[in-house]
C-alpha cells in the first residue's frame, strides 16, 4: 500500500498552504485533488483581495493561486490531480480513485481541506436550466469565458453576489437586478458602489418568488418581503431574465470527516455543519486536521492561514518541530488570523471560531485524561 507522511485532501488555498508549511519543515507531503488543475476556486477570483499586504491584499486571486503553486513546487510537495478521495478510514487510510482505478493510501497524518459548496434556494422553477449558483456563473465567465446568459437576476447581495454581478457586467451580460431579503446590503460597500454606479438596481427586502420558462428560464417573479421575510401580496413584479444566479451562502464540505466519525457541530455563523476543531485545527480524530472553508465558511485569506496552522501542527505531530518552536510559529499565524477576522463580518466569525475552538480544546483535553 502506498504510504505518505502527510496526506492533504484538496489543492485549494487551505490545502496548498498546509502542504507548503509542512513540506518546508521536512514532512513528505502528498496532496490529492479531484480536479485536473490545482488551485481550488482561486483561479476564478479575478478581483483584488482585501486585508493587509501581509495577506496579499491588492493581489488578484489567480496570482495568489500561481504564487502558491510555485511555493508548493519549491517545497517538494507532490500534487496528485484527477484523484478523488472517496473515503477516509481509520488508520488513517485514504480511498482514492484516479481515472477509474481505485487504490488506498496510508498516511501518518491527514489534513482535510475540501472547501465548501454553494447553497441552493428552492422556489417554483428553481430547477430550470438557467438557474445556477453565482459561483458557477463566476467559473463559467472567468475560467471558461462563456456567458451563462444575457439578462441576469442575482439573488443575494453578499460579497459573492456583488462581485459576480460586477464580473457578469464586465463580461457583457446585463444584470437586471440584485435582490436581497435583508433590509441592507450584505457585502462590502465598495463592491455594491461599483454596481450602483453601473446602474444596477439593488432591491432590498426583496426576493425571488418563482421563475418560469420552457425549456429554460425566461422570466422571474420577485416581490417585497416584510420584516419576517414573508412575501407582501400585491408587490410581485415580473423580470425578463434568462438567468437567475443564487448567491445565498456556502456550506462546509465535511463528508469525509463525517464518515470517519469525526465530531460535527452546527453554527450558522460558519455555514452550518462543520467538523469540531481546536485552535490547532485538530479534529476529534487523532492525526486528522481540517482547514479552510471545510472547517467553517470564511474566505480565501483565512483559508490560507488556517492551512498554514494545520500544516505546522501536523509537522509538530510528526516530530519535525519541537513543541517550543511550534508554539512560537503557531502563535504568529494565529495573530495573523485574528487580524483577518476583524471588521463587521470578520468579527462575527472571530467570535464563532473562538467559541468553537475553545470548547473543542477543553473537550479534547478531557478525552486525553481519560
Amino acid at each position, binding site marked *: 500500500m502506498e504510504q505518505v507522511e502527510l496526506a492533504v485532501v484538496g489543492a485549494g488555498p487551505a490545502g496548498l498552504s498546509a502542504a507548503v508549511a509542512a513540506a518546508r519543515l521536512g514532512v513528505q507531503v502528498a496532496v490529492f485533488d479531484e480536479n485536473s488543475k490545482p488551485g481550488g476556486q482561486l483561479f476564478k477570483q479575478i478581483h483584488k483581495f482585501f486585508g493587509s499586504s501581509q495577506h496579499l491584499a491588492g493581489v488578484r486571486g489567480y496570482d495568489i493561486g500561481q504564487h502558491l503553486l510555485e511555493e508548493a513546487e519549491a517545497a517538494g510537495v507532490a500534487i496528485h490531480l484527477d484523484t478523488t478521495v472517496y473515503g477516509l478510514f481509520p488508520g488513517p487510510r485514504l480511498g482514492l480513485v484516479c481515472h477509474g482505478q481505485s487504490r488506498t493510501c496510508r498516511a501518518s497524518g491527514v489534513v482535510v481541506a475540501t472547501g465548501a459548496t454553494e447553497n441552493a434556494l428552492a422556489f417554483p422553477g428553481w430547477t430550470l*436550466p438557467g438557474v445556477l*449558483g453565482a459561483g458557477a456563473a463566476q467559473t463559467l465567465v472567468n475560467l471558461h469565458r462563456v456567458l*451563462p446568459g444575457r439578462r441576469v437576476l442575482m439573488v443575494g447581495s453578499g460579497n459573492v453576489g456583488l462581485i459576480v454581478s460586477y464580473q457578469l457586467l464586465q463580461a457583457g451580460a446585463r444584470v437586471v437586478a440584485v435582490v436581497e431579503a435583508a433590509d441592507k446590503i450584505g457585502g462590502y460597500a465598495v463592491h455594491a458602489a461599483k454596481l450602483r454606479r453601473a446602474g444596477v438596481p439593488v432591491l432590498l427586502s426583496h426576493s425571488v418568488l418563482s421563475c418560469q420558462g420552457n*425549456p429554460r428560464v425566461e422570466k422571474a417573479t420577485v416581490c417585497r418581503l416584510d420584516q419576517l421575510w414573508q412575501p407582501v401580496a400585491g408587490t410581485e413584479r415580473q423580470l425578463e431574465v434568462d438567468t437567475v444566479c443564487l448567491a445565498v451562502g456556502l456550506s462546509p464540505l465535511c463528508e469525509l470527516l463525517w464518515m470517519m466519525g469525526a465530531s460535527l457541530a452546527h453554527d450558522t455563523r460558519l455555514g452550518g455543519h462543520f467538523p469540531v476543531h481546536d485552535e490547532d485545527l485538530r479534529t476529534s480524530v487523532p492525526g486528522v486536521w481540517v482547514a479552510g472553508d471545510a472547517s467553517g465558511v470564511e474566505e480565501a485569506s483565512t483559508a490560507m492561514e488556517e492551512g498554514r496552522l494545520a500544516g505546522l501542527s501536523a509537522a509538530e505531530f510528526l516530530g519535525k518541530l519541537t513543541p517550543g518552536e511550534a508554539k512560537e510559529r503557531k502563535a504568529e499565524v494565529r495573530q495573523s488570523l485574528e487580524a483577518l477576522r476583524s471588521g463587521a463580518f470578520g468579527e462575527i466569525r472571530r467570535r464563532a471560531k473562538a467559541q468553537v475552538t475553545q470548547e473543542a480544546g477543553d473537550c479534547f483535553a478531557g478525552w486525553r485524561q481519560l
Partner: protein
Amino acid sequence: MDGIPVAARTGEPIAAALMAAGHHVFRYTPRRHEPRGVFCAIGRCTDCIMTVDGVPNVRTCVTPVRPGMEIRTQEGLGRWSK
C-alpha cells in the same frame, strides 16, 4: 451534440462548449421528464450529466472536451451503449 457538430476550444469542459453554442438543456429527469442544465459548474451537483461516448452520467462541467466526442442529451438515468 445529438448528432450535430459543435465547435469547441481545446481543454474547455464539455459544458462550456455547449453553453457557448447556445445549448442549455443537458438532460431530462427520470420521472417527470423535466429539463436540467448546469447548476454548480465545479463537479459537485451532477445536474449537468450527459451521455458521452456511450457512457451515461458524465459530469460535463469537469470533463474536458475532445475532438469527435459523441455527446447525447441524457434521458433519465441514461443507458450504456457499449
